[in-house]
C-alpha cells in the first residue's frame, strides 16, 4: 500500500454540506446525484448497473474492493456510476483466477474517480435526513470554486431523461438461436443479469434501443415483450410511455422491471413520484400479496408508482408491497398478461428469492402461444 501521506478528497453537496476523505490515487473531479447503497457484497455489479448512470455512489459498507473484480460479474460493458465514495477502499484484493483483477485497476482503466476514508455513515445519514441531491467529489488539488462550478453545471434528476445515454444504439440478440421463446426487449439501461435469467429459461432476446417505434418492435412478432430497468425520471419519457401503451394493447405477455414497471404504470395513467432517498440495497423485504409469501430483494430506484392510485385503478392489481415503507412494489393487469415489479428479481447483486417472476413470464408466454 502507498505509504506516503495521501492527498485529500472533498465531497461538496448541493446544499453546501461538505465531507472529507482521502485519495487512493484515482484522482479527479466528478459529480452527479449523490446516492447510497447498503449492500455488503456486489459492488462491481452496482458500479456497472446502467440504472446508476451518472450517480455519485456512496457505499455504506466499510470495505470495498476486497475481492477485486471479475470479468463475468458485470451488468453492462462499463462502469456507469459517476464516481465512488468509500470508507475503506481496498487497493489489494484476494481472489483466485485469471479473470480477476483489482478494483483500483478497473477504475484506473476507465478513468473513473474513487476516494476513501470518508465517514460514509455520516453521508448516508445526511442524505437520509435531507434527501437525495446532487454533489461533486474532488480528489486532488481543486478549489471550492472549481467544485461549485462543476456542481452548478449538473442537471437536476427530477424530470431528467437518462435512458438514451445508456441504451444500446443498435438492436442485438442475446441467447441461443434455437431457444423456444423469442422475447423482444426495450433497453432503457438493461442489466446483463436480466438477459442471463431469460436466456437460462429458454429465451432468445432481441434487445432494441430505447426509442424504437412500436411497429418495428411488433414486426419481430415475439412471444413476449420485456421492458427493462434504467436510470432517470420515468415521467420524462412520454414517447416510450406511448410505445408501452401499444405493447400492452398488443395482447402479448409483458414483463417490466424497475423503470419498465414505472412505464407500465404511467401507460395506465398512474402517477409516479420521486422518493425522499430511494431504495438502494440488497436486503429489501417484499411481500407478495397474491401468495402471502415474502422475499428479500435487490433494489435500486429513486422513483416509485403511486400506491393509492394503483389500488384504485380498475384494471390493475397491486401484487407486491415493500414491507419497510409499504410502497407499491409490483403490479399486474387484471385482464391482460402484463405484470411488473419495482425491484430486481434478476439479482446481480443480491438474493435470488424473486427469480420465480421470470418463471411466471415464461408461463404467461407458454399459455398464450
Amino acid at each position, binding site marked *: 500500500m502507498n505509504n506516503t501521506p495521501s492527498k485529500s478528497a472533498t465531497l461538496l453537496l448541493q446544499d453546501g454540506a461538505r465531507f472529507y476523505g482521502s485519495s487512493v490515487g484515482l484522482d479527479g473531479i466528478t459529480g452527479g446525484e449523490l446516492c447510497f447503497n447498503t449492500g455488503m457484497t456486489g459492488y462491481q455489479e452496482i458500479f456497472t448497473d446502467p440504472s446508476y448512470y451518472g450517480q455519485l455512489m456512496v457505499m455504506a459498507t466499510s*470495505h470495498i474492493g476486497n475481492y477485486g473484480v471479475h470479468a463475468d460479474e458485470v451488468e453492462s460493458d462499463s462502469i456507469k456510476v459517476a464516481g465512488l465514495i468509500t470508507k475503506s477502499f481496498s487497493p489489494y484484493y484476494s481472489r483466485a483466477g485469471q479473470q480477476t483483477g483489482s478494483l483500483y485497476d478497473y477504475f484506473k482503466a476507465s478513468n473513473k474517480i474513487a476516494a476513501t476514508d470518508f465517514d460514509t455513515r455520516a453521508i448516508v445519514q445526511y442524505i437520509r435526513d435531507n434527501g437525495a441531491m446532487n454533489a461533486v467529489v474532488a480528489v486532488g488539488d481543486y478549489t471550492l470554486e472549481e467544485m461549485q462550478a462543476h456542481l452548478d453545471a449538473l442537471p437536476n434528476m427530477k424530470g431528467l431523461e437518462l435512458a438514451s445515454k445508456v441504451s444500446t444504439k443498435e438492436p442485438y440478440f442475446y441467447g441461443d438461436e434455437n431457444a423456444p421463446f423469442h422475447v423482444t426487449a426495450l433497453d432503457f439501461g438493461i442489466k446483463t443479469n436480466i438477459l442471463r435469467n431469460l436466456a437460462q429459461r429458454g429465451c432468445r432476446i432481441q434487445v432494441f434501443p430505447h426509442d424504437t417505434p412500436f411497429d418495428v418492435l411488433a414486426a419481430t412478432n415475439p412471444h413476449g415483450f420485456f421492458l427493462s430497468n434504467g436510470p432517470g425520471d420515468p415521467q420524462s419519457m412520454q414517447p416510450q410511455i406511448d410505445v408501452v401503451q401499444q405493447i400492452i394493447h398488443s395482447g402479448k405477455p409483458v414483463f417490466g422491471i424497475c423503470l419498465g414497471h414505472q412505464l407500465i404504470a404511467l401507460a395506465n395513467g398512474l402517477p409516479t413520484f420521486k422518493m425522499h432517498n430511494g431504495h438502494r440495497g440488497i436486503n429489501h423485504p417484499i411481500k407478495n400479496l397474491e401468495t402471502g409469501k415474502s422475499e*428479500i430483494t435487490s433494489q435500486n430506484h429513486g422513483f416509485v408508482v403511486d400506491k393509492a392510485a394503483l389500488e384504485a385503478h380498475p384494471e390493475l392489481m397491486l401484487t407486491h408491497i415493500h414491507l419497510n415503507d409499504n410502497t407499491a412494489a409490483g403490479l399486474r393487469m387484471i385482464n391482460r398478461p402484463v405484470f411488473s415489479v419495482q425491484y430486481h428479481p434478476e439479482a446481480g447483486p443480491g438474493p435470488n428469492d424473486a427469480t420465480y417472476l421470470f418463471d411466471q413470464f415464461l408461463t404467461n408466454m407458454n399459455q398464450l402461444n
Partner: protein
Amino acid sequence: MPRDNSIKSVLIIGSGPIVIGQACEFDYSGSQAARSLREEGIEVTLINSNPATIMTDPVTADHVYLLPLTIESIEHILEKHNIDAVLPTMGGQTALNLAMEADKQGLWETHGVRMIGVDIDAINITEDREEFRLLMQKIGVGVAPSATAKSFLKGKEIAQEFGFPLCIRASYTLGGSGAAIVYDKNDFENLLSHGLEVSPIHEVMIDKALIGWKEYELELLRDANDNVTIICSIENMDPMGIHTGDSITVAPAMTLSDRTYQRMRDLAIKMMRSIGNFAGGCNVQFAVSPDEKEDIVAIEINPRVSRSSALASKATGYPIAKIASKLAIGYHLDELQNQITKTTSAFFEPTLDYVIVKIPRWNFDKFEGADRTLGLQMKSVGEVMGIGRTFQEAIQKAAQSLEIRRNGLGADGKGYTDQDQVMEMLANPSWNRVFVLYDAIQLGIPLRRIHEATKIDMWFLRQFDDLVQVQRRIEAETLDSISRGLLLEAKTKGFADRQIAHMLHTLESKIHDKRMSFDIHRVWKLVDTCAAEFPAETPYYYSTFENLGGAKGLPMVSRNESVVSDKPKVVVLGSGPNRIGQGIEFDYSCVHGVMAAKECGYETIMINCNPETVSTDFDTADKLYFEPVFWEHIYDIIRHENPVGVIVQLGGQTALKLAEKLERFGIRIMGTSFDMLDLAEDRGRFSEMLHENNIPYPQFDVITSSNQIHDAAKRIGFPMLVRPSYVLGGQGMKIVINEEELEHHVVELFKDFPGNRILLDHYLDGAIEAEADAICDGEDVYIIGIMEHIEPCGIHSGDSNATLPPFNLGEWVMQQIKDHTHTIAKALGTVGLINIQFAIKDDTVYIIEANPRASRTVPFICKAYGEPYVNYATKVMLGEKKVKDFTFNPKLEGWAIKIPVFSFDKFPKVNKQLGPQMRSTGEKIYFVKNLKDPVFRKLYSERNLYLSR
C-alpha cells in the same frame, strides 16, 4: 398468521452449567426467549441447573426450577403446571438432547405438550452425520467425502479409502469433543478409539479434511410461512481445521463475492427447508475452496439458536432469540417489527456499515499439560467482540478486550522476535494466534510464507501488514513531530493511545493530550441493523474515529451519534470475556446492578465487550457501549457522558482493578472507596487492620524479589501458599512444601507477572474453608449467606463443593465468622458487597482474604434464598438505601449445594487433580432436604480422599 393463541404456557429448557462449547450465550438466548414470550402474555416456566444465570431469575420467568436437567425434573414440572408447549432450542445441545429424550419416553405426549420451534426429524438428520450426508446429496448440496464408522475396523477401512489428512468427529457431542485432524495412521488409530468412546452412540464420522478451505457461517431465521431471512454472514479468518468456537471470526464476510455469497445463501435456504418444517433459528456452516472454482461444501447445520447466533445478534443488533421465540408461537416475520428501528419490518436482512471481530479467550494456563494447539475441538472458555468501522479497528479493539495484559496488536514490547519460534507458532496455532501474525509480519516474514503456513486469506494478512506499516511510520516520528493525519490514521486503525505512546516513547496521557490538541475525538456510532438507511431508536453504541464533515455554516466535525441526556447517570463496568474464575456470575451481578440503578432513577450506562452476555443485550441498560473494558475507551465514555459515578464492584476483578485509575482521574467510585478497596487488596495494610481488630490470620509475607525468600520462609513456615497479588481465580497460585519448591515458583511468577508483588501465606493444612458474603452500608452489616466447603482447605473455593448454609460448623465457629464479617466489613468502610474467605482450624476462624465486591457466590446465594441481594447492594452503593431499609426474608428448606463443573473432557491428557488454582468452568445448584441425601453423602465421603493426601 398471528400468534397461536392455544399456547398459553411455555416451558424453556436451559443449557445447564457452563462448559467449554456451551457457555453463557445460552443464558442470553434463554432470557431473551422468556422475555419475548412474556411480552405476549404467555406464562413462562424455566428449568436450568445453573444458578448463575439471569434466565433463572424471577425477573425473567414466572416459574423457575433450579433442578438437574433430567427427565425426572421435567416430569415433576409437567405434573405441577399445565404446560402447553416446550421450547427446547434456546438451551444448546443439552436442552435439545433432553427434549428428545423426553420425547422418546413419550413425556410430551402424555402431558399434551407440543414441541415448538423445532422438528425432531430435523434434529435427527442434522445430528446423524451419515443421514445428513445422504440428504445433502439428495438435494444437490456438496459435502466433503465422508463416511461413518461404528467400529474400529470400519474406521480403518474408510481411512484407507480416503487417504490422509482426515477429520474424525464423534457423533452427538458438544463443541467438537473427540474431533481431530489426523495426518498419519498411528494418530488415526488412537483418535478413532477415543472418538468411538466419547460418542454416546459410539459412532464417528470420518471426512476427507478440507484443509485450507475458507470457512463461513450463515445465521438464518424462518417462520411458519416458510419465509427465510439471513441475519448474518460470518467469515472465519482461520480457515477450515480450527473449530469455529476457537476461530477468529469476522462479520460481515470480508472476502466473498456477491455471486458466491448468493450461491451460499441459496444453499443455506435449501438446506434449512430440506431438514424439516420448523419456525425458528438455524445455523449453517460452509467451506469454500480457495481456488477459482469457489466450490461450496456444506459442513453442518444446527436447527437451533447457537453460539454463533448470540454473536450474530450482537454483531447485527438483530435479536435472533427474541424473534425466533415469536416465530415459534406462530408469528410470521413480516408481521413483526425490526426491534432496533421500531419502524421497519423484522423480515429483512441486516446490513452492516462496520465490522465485528470475535477473538476467543483461552485459559490453557489452567490446564497444565494440555495440548495447546487449536484444532477441531473447541478449547476456548470465552470470547470478546470488537466493533470498529473497519476490520483493522475491530481486531485491535478485540485484542484490547482480551485482558491478557496486551494493549492490542503490536507496540507493547511483548511480541515474539525469534523467527523459528514464530514460524513454528504460525504452523501450530494457539491462544496467541492473532499476536503471532502481527509479530511475523513485523519480523519481515513474507506474507506468502505466512499464508502458506496458516492458509489465512491474503486480504486479512494485508490488513495486518498495513497495521505494521502504520507502526513503522509512527516509530519514525516523535511526540512533537507526529502529524495530525498520521495520528488520526493510527486511531482509525484501532491503535490505543498506550500503543502509540510505546511507539513514541512517551506516556499514554501525553498521546491523549496530543490528540485533544489536534482535535481528534473519539465518536460513537449506532449499531442499527440497516447501515443508517433508517433512523434507529436503540441505544447500542461503539466508538470510532472519523474524518470531518457537516452541513453548510456549521463547524466541520466527526459525526457523533451518542447524545448525552441531562439525567443523572451511572456507569456499570462489565466483566469482559468469560474465563475460569470470572464467568457468568459477574454478568449476573452487572445486569442486576443496572436494573437496580434504573429503579433509583439513574440513566444506566453499561460498558462491556463480551458478546455472550445479557449485560450486552441492548435491552438491558439505558445505554450500551459495546467497548473494551480498557482504560482509554472507558475514560472517553466517562468524559462524554459525565456520570455521577462508576460502579466497579459488580464486574469482577476486571472492573475492580480500574478503580485506582478512576480515583486518580477524579472520577467518583460508587460505594466502597478506592482507599478501602486498596486496603483489602494490600496484604500489609489488610493484616494490620486484622491485627488491630484481634482477628486471626495465617502468618504471611509480601515479597518483591526472590532474595527475600529465605527470611520469609523462616518466619512463615511450610506448607505455604504462594500467589501473585491482584489476580483472580487463583491464577499462579501454588502450595509449596519446601524452600526449593518455593524458590522455583517465585522465580516463575516474577517472570510471568513482572513488577508484581508475591504473597506468601502459611497454609493451614487440613483446615475447613468457609466464606461469607455480606451487604454493608458503612454502618450496618447484613450477612446474605455463609457457605461451607465440603473439601478441606487447599482446593480453590471455585472448585469446591459447598453448602449453604454450613453443614457442620459449630455455634462458636459460626459466631466467629459472623463477628469477623461484621468487623471487617465496617473496618473496610464497605458500601456495597463484600466477600470474606475463612479457614477454620481447631475451632479458630482465620481470615484468608476479603474481596470488597460481588463475588462468584453471590448469584448462588440469591437463587438459593430467592432474594435480590445484588439489587439491594447496588441501592446501598448508590447511597439510595441503607441496610436497615430492607426486610430480608431468605427462604430455604434444607441446604443448597454448589457443585462445580469441569471441562476436562476437552483436555484428555491433563492432570485432573484439584488444587489452589481454579479450573472449573461452571457450577450447578442442587437442593437437599437433609444431610442424608445421597448426593450430599457421596460428596462428603469423597472429601476424605483429599484429607488422606
